[in-house]
């Protein structure tokens, strides 16, 4: 087969594409555009986890101390929280932290993926 450049180009362009495996398109779409939304959002899951942890903690405290230890712990936490929150310095730090978190959240809405030229691709060309 002595092909000239044009004939080879034509033969290449006429070459049929590989047949993708069955179900490939469906699996791509299920992983992207038609991805089912999760039953719970991240925040809801975090909240549920926290509630579960508090529930277990309460149960353990009640089971171990018959309630006395539980109330004592609550009182300790309450006293600590009221002491901390009555301090202007603590309140100022909390406000600063909240403001910083809010400010940062404005810039982290999406995580762009940069497609850079691949090093192995460059190496392969040598």
């Amino acid at each position, binding site marked *: 087969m002595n092909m000239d450049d044009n004939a080879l180009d034509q033969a290449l362009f006429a070459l049929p*594409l590989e047949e993708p495996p069955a179900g490939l398109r469906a699996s*791509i*779409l299920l992983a*992207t555009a*038609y991805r089912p939304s999760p039953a719970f959002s991240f925040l809801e899951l975090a909240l549920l986890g926290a509630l579960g942890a508090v529930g277990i903690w309460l149960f353990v405290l009640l089971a171990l101390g018959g309630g006395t230890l539980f109330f004592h712990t609550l009182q300790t936490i309450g006293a600590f929280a009221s002491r901390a929150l009555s301090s202007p310095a603590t309140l100022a730090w909390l406000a600063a932290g909240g403001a910083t978190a809010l400010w940062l959240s404005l810039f982290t809405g999406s995580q762009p993926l940069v497609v850079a030229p691949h090093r192995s691709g460059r190496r392969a060309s040598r």
Partner: protein
Amino acid sequence: MKAEPEDGNLVALTLRGNPEAFATLVERYDRAVYHLAYRTLHDVEEARDATQEAFFKAFRSLRTFKPGSKFSTWIFAIAYHACCDRLNRRKRYASEELPERADPAPGPEQQAIALDQAARLRAAIDALPEKYRTVITLFHLQGKQYDEIANVLGLPMGTVKTHLFRAKEQLRRLLGEMEVTES
């Protein structure tokens, strides 16, 4: 007759929350992306995974797609990088140096038996070294748009043209060898 929406418009629609638009892009390019992945990796499962990975990454980073550029070039570049990652992983785990081809195939003599022209051409492309095979595959997919091929591969246009010239030379030689063997 209703005009087909352009890729750029489909990207914009997807970003506005229209999943049908991305589905149209997938329908348009999944076969070509799979073809590129399969020709590069020579493995059905890996090509399938690389194709899925490419579309998943594209979907996640659709905001970084530059309006006015070609979606095909962008998705091919993502797919090519996914394939390169897989080839690198293969090389890392292989106990010995890999040959130029990803999988050893029978030589031109065996390949030539009872093959029609398309199959013969495909076998000849498969016998090319990896860098030439990829350039020829992209030439097949993108046509004579050398700048787009260069963008996908991250290579200078001159290098792409040189690779293409050498790839075609080798293809002609391999096809000639196959014909001699057959007759």
